[in-house]
């Protein structure tokens, strides 16, 4: 009846039990609050069943926030463990729990925070920047989100029921095979990543088609904002990389469930095949994460320098070249496989070549500021911090790309410091910049600038303090994933320093949350009525904040890269007010139901509950057939309604 699920799965150590209890009570509290405020119906109608990309984008942000709290708690626990677990002290965590935590930290941050940021930003910004009212496939967009969100929930479920994988965030076999990981952990990992991955592929197709097909009149590819270009290249990578992940996990699943021998140590299997395949996805994946940050900084730097982006075409080509190269460097993640000098040399050179287009981007941002009117507002501060961190981490990356060096520091903390420089200094700082920059667009409120700056300085200094010691520790021979080390190594002070850095980051994150709260609370003080608080350049700043459901009452026509900037300087004609009926897709609950069934399916497969897997799978297929037998219906918003909304806002621009 319940497969492998027994009462034993609900027993945990103290730390985990506390986390589970607080999570359960938090959930109950939120549900109760919604009942108390009588907001369930509102939540259902306006949000959960919505196909509006702006709403879906905000829901991505909520999931990202929740998952970031989880991933960050993991990180703090890891830092505390390594700061205390020296010599005779064993620290706070048992070895098994420690392994679960580092596996969960990576999985959460990459799949549920990083990917959530990518698709959240794409949902929020892309339709507005290309002057569209909607995305190409609103239904698929919602489905992609719900698969992502439910996979995230599956990872929260794994916290309370059973154990998470102990095989690291990429679950290398043979450790992740049935022989060495017989429990439910790896199965949880497989299904959450598989479900989220399918969601990503679906969303990738949606946004590629959106950008190719839905741009407003006059917006040729060469007049697209760089952010849209970055998402375009990003989605091409998603479409090419994620199927490899799906296939790889599929084979690992067959190994574990049907006793196949793809990646097993015996039976003729080849586990290096898994490592090759997973990095054939994994390397493009890191560029998938960073591209929206590149796009964001291109917008932010141009806006806050009051200057057109320098070297637009070279920016675009740099993106394209990086996207292509990202598929032929995967082997640099395991030079130590020993593929031989020729193979390693090829991948080393290809890796170093990537530094060239990346350098082009860095210089273009610098030249954009040159003779511009630079404003030191907080989105720009994140850019400066990014510039430093990304260059340092990029240079250590080039160092790592030389096989002889890589053999020395492979899997050491040097590597950890390198890629955290990329994902925190790059992806996360880029996201914070984007968050501050576009927050007014979607709420009509400008975030408290003073608190932003406090938070920024905490993050920046905390980051340096937390990760610079790791470079040194790497050189001193500290490997990653250590739950205990000897006092004679002399590593202790540096680990303590790193923990202090993590605490400062934590403080910065608290200020951010408080800043968000205080901005929402003192709404009247932070209100922006213009819809264009930063003197913006691209189309999203020409509509109201928050934008009406149809984005643009009149579909804009553009003839240059910075249409709104030109319009404000009377260099481009203002649109003629000629309203028309607007067709909008109708909300639907099917994506949500399909997501829930996917969650049940993943859970049932993890615990080998046969009947439940079959029932939920049939449910998904039935819903799909149901959807494919209907008609895509549209709501029509009449001219009168549009006029009313637009009149409330005042004149155009």
């Amino acid at each position, binding site marked *: 009846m319940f497969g492998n699920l027994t009462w034993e799965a609900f027993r945990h150590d103290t730390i985990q039990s506390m986390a589970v209890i607080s999570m359960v009570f938090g959930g109950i509290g939120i549900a109760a609050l919604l009942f108390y405020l009588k907001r369930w119906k509102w939540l259902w109608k306006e949000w959960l069943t919505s196909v509006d990309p702006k709403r879906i984008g905000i829901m991505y942000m909520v999931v990202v926030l929740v998952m970031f709290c989880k991933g960050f708690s993991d990180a703090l626990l890891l830092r505390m463990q390594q700061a205390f677990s020296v010599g005779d002290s064993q620290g706070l965590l048992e070895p098994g729990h420690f392994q679960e935590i580092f596996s969960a930290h990576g999985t959460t941050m990459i799949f549920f925070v990083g990917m959530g940021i990518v698709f959240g930003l794409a949902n929020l910004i892309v339709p507005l920047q290309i002057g569209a009212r909607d995305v*190409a*496939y609103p239904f*698929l967009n919602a489905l992609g989100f719900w698969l992502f969100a439910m996979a995230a929930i599956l990872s929260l479920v794994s916290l309370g029921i059973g154990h998470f994988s102990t095989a690291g965030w990429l679950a290398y076999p043979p450790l992740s095979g049935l022989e060495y990981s017989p429990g439910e952990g790896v199965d949880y990992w497989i299904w959450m990543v598989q479900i989220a991955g399918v969601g990503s*592929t679906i969303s990738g*197709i*949606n946004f*590629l*088609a959106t950008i*190719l*097909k*839905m741009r407003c*009149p006059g917006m040729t590819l060469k007049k697209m904002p760089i952010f849209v270009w970055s998402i375009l290249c990003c989605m091409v990578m998603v*479409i*090419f990389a*994620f*199927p*490899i992940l*799906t*296939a*790889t996990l*599929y*084979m690992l699943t*067959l*190994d574990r469930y*049907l*006793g*196949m*021998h*793809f990646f*097993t140590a*015996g*039976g*003729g*299997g*080849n586990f290096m*095949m898994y490592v090759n*395949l997973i990095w054939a996805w994994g390397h493009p994946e890191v560029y998938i994460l960073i591209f929206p940050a590149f796009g964001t900084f291109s917008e932010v730097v141009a806006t806050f320098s009051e200057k057109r982006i320098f070297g637009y075409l070279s920016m675009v080509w740099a993106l394209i070249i990086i996207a292509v190269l990202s598929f032929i460097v995967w082997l640099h993640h395991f030079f130590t496989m020993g593929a031989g000098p020729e193979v390693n040399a090829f991948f080393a050179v290809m890796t170093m070549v990537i530094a060239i287009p990346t350098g082009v981007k860095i210089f273009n941002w610098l030249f954009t500021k040159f003779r511009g009117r630079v404003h030191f507002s907080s989105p720009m501060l994140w850019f400066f911090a990014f510039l430093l961190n990304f260059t340092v981490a990029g240079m250590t990356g080039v160092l790592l790309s030389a096989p002889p060096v890589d053999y020395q520091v492979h899997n050491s903390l040097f590597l950890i410091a390198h890629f955290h420089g990329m994902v925190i200094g790059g992806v996360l700082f880029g996201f914070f910049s984007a968050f501050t920059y576009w927050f007014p667009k979607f709420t009509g409120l400008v975030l408290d600038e003073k608190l932003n700056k406090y938070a920024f300085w905490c993050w920046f200094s905390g980051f340096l303090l937390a990760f610079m010691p790791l470079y040194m520790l790497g050189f001193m021979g500290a490997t990653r994933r250590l739950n205990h080390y000897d006092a004679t190594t002399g590593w202790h002070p540096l680990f303590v320093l790193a923990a202090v850095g993590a605490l400062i980051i934590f403080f910065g994150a608290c200020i951010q949350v408080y800043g968000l709260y205080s901005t929402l609370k003192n709404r009247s003080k932070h209100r922006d009525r213009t819809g264009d608080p930063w003197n913006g350049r691209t189309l999203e700043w020409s509509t109201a904040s928050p934008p009406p459901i149809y984005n643009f009452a009149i*579909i804009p026509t553009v003839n240059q890269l910075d249409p709104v900037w030109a319009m404000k300087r009377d260099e481009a004609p203002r649109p003629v007010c000629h309203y*028309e*009926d607007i*067709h909008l897709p109708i909300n639907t609950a099917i994506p949500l139901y399909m997501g829930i069934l996917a969650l049940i399916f993943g859970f049932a497969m993890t615990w080998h509950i046969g009947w439940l897997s079959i029932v939920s799978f049939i449910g998904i*297929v039935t819903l799909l*057939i149901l959807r*494919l*037998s209907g*008609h*895509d219906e*549209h709501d029509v918003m009449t001219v009168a309604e549009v006029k009313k909304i637009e009149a409330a806002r005042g004149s155009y621009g």
Partner: protein
Amino acid sequence: MDKSFVIRHTVEAHPDLSIPDPHQDAFVRTTLGFWMYLMTDCLIFASLFITYAVLHHETFGGPSSRELFELKLPFAETMALLLSSVSCGFAILASLKNKKNKIIGWLIVAFLFGAAFVGMELHEFNGLLQQGHSWRKSAFLSSFFTLVGTHGLHVSIGLLWMLVMMAQVFRNGVTLFTFRRLVIFGMFWHFLDLVWIFIFTFVYLIGVL
């Protein structure tokens, strides 16, 4: 459904009646998106092909492809799938002329050939299992069963889809929606043909050498 649509739909950007904005053309958008989906599916198969290429000598003391495979059955499977594809093509041609019964007739033919393909594949798998050559025996057999079986799974999904399309055409005739769906189903079905040609070449033809 008016006749003018049937003629116009072949013109590159036919205005979709449900959306007034001509540059937001649902027909072109859907087919484009489906091409992209086929691309992703193609990459899944590519991964399985690569794995098969790497592992197909890893027989772990068991039989190799030369001892196991023969060409008669796969050739018959190839013919069945190709004929199914042709029939599906005829069904789509019939939909251009708005001939409901003809569409359903050709779809039934395509379905039968497709079902014959799946039947033959299951027969082959069953034979291997009877002789004790299961996927548990070696990496070669794992990758063989997975590659060929995944294709078979796709064909089976296609058969289910075909049933749904028959029901839709039967109930609604040729509409904007059923026509669009027939076209993308056709793309899917031809795509599976193409994948099978590669399987026939790389797995069976090279396998018996």
